[in-house]
């Protein structure tokens, strides 16, 4: 069966060339590309067949899907029904049972090396992975099977990328990111708890149209969405630079919308597009709503508590600055004592030497 391109799809629906080009321009900006790339996007959308996508779910809460279905441009429904060929999805499929699993095997066979594998959720590594089962097998088994023939693997959410909330200490199920189970398939990490809807759709459209994974940073995240810190794109950044901070949630600074840095905001350590894309068609993002960023797209953010202070507290003294100051104080006392004994020892030595001299 010849697979149709996006342009074929538009024609089949009787939509105009103008709306197709408009769609391509929207896609270009959505993928974080510059405007001179429009022509390439149009070309790709005319010729590239719609990508086959297999979407599987592991150890997770399905919150990434909740985010995904709220994508505004393109509409998630548009993406699922018109722009990709979603052959298998645990959550969105009406089918179930053996025919559904048989369809997965058929899809993997038929589009070997061509389909995109989207993965949500972590894998369980403890006790042979029995804590997360899918279709009668462990999820790690499904992951190995589905990634073997995948053109690319997209890890949606912090679970698939790094292990997620269930990997928090003491991590009873041995949750981890999917990278160890996907062999040599190219991996794109799209972390976030959940990721921004437009980032989810943008990444898959990039792979779909250009047939290659987007440029990645050292950690395997697409640069166009994870290249900036939230702190560096935050609209409250001028307050940080000027030293204007909220110190409690009900002080003057909090009411005036000043920087939440002193309330533990993880914006300075977090890479995501919340600051520039924001959420739900630019409506808001946590900091705009007055809550400090918890760094949900960071590896290990779930163990980096307390989330409302800059640094962890240890014991009765508190954070390292207080412990350090106490250590410096203790050291001053110790040094003074050592100095006194040193002087006494020196005097003793000199007295002894003098006595020896006289004795000669």
């Amino acid at each position: 069966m010849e697979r149709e391109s996006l342009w074929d799809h538009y024609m089949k629906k009787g939509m105009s060339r103008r709306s197709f080009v408009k769609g391509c321009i929207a896609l270009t900006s959505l993928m974080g590309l510059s405007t001179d790339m429009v022509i390439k996007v149009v070309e790709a959308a005319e010729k590239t067949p719609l990508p086959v996508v297999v979407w599987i779910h592991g150890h997770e809460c399905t919150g990434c899907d909740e985010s995904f279905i709220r994508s505004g441009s393109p509409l998630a429904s548009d993406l699922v029904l018109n722009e990709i060929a979603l052959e298998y999805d645990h959550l969105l499929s009406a089918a179930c049972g053996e025919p559904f699993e048989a369809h997965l095997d058929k899809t993997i066979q038929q589009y070997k090396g061509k389909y995109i594998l989207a993965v949500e959720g972590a894998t369980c590594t403890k006790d042979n992975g029995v804590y997360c089962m899918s279709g009668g097998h462990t999820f790690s088994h499904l992951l190995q099977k589905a990634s073997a023939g995948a053109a690319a693997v997209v890890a949606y959410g912090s679970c698939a990328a790094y292990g997620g909330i269930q990997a928090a200490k003491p991590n009873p199920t041995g949750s981890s990111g999917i990278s160890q189970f996907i062999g040599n398939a190219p991996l794109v990490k799209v972390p976030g708890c959940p990721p921004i809807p437009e980032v989810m759709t943008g990444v898959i459209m990039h792979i779909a149209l250009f047939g290659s994974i987007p440029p990645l940073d050292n950690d395997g995240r697409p640069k166009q969405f994870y290249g900036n810190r939230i702190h560096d794109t935050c609209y409250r950044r001028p307050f940080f630079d000027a030293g204007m901070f909220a110190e409690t949630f009900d002080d003057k600074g909090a009411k005036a919308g000043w920087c939440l840095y002193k309330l533990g905001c993880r914006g300075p350590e977090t890479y995501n597009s919340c600051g520039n894309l924001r959420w739900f068609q630019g409506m808001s993002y946590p900091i705009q709503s007055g809550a400090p960023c918890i760094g949900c797209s960071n590896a290990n953010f779930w163990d980096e508590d307390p989330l409302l202070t800059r640094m962890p507290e240890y014991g009765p003294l508190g954070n390292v600055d207080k412990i350090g100051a106490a250590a410096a104080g203790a050291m001053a006392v110790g040094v003074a004592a050592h100095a006194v004994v040193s002087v006494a020892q020196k005097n003793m030595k000199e007295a002894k030497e003098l006595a020896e001299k006289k004795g000669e």
Partner: protein
Amino acid sequence: MADEIMKEEPRKTYYVFSPFLRIFHWIMAISITVLFITGILITTPWVTYSSEPTTSWMALDWIRNIHFLFAYIFTASFILRIYGFIINRGDRLFPHFWKGYFYRNTIDVAMHYSFLKFEHKPFLRNPLARGAYATMYVLIAIEILTGFGIYYMTDTSSLGGMLFGWFVPLIGSEYWAHLIHHYVAWGIILSALGHIYMVIRAEFMEGEGEVSSMFAGTKMLRHKPFDAGHLDGTLD
């Protein structure tokens, strides 16, 4: 009487530190002080009560810029340290931890410092100090790697990004990179306090130019130091 005021005794003057190391040392002392103070202020900034950011003094922005400026100056000054290391043996007094005498002498010095012995063997630089300074360089290396690692994470394709970008993913989390940077800074400051005390103590107890050597480059010793051979290469 005259004995106590004026003493005539034979001393040997050893040229130990090249000017490159001495200049580096003082750049390091100033940089570490500035970096520590600005670093503490960046983590726990004071609050400015102003009506508009644009009309304020831009306090934290300036503090961060000073921190970055001194980070660059300090890192660049290692060129002097490395040049001195190449041309002058006295700049190479590292711990010879692969030698038996290093451990024997360390115990000797430690016993003196804990007042179990009246004195330790004379050294150009005693093995305990050598170990401490080597540890200091390790701590500084961690600061440089975490600091520039964090700094260049937004520009991973730049030269700085290529040099330092690998380190933060190795730690696994940028938050922990920040914490390590901060914790190690305390380690450096506490070591520096210990260093200042030990140097002044040595000057006071032995009077052999421990403090002035970092200005003049020479130490004036009464006895032949055990490690004199490290200056002319006769001791491995």
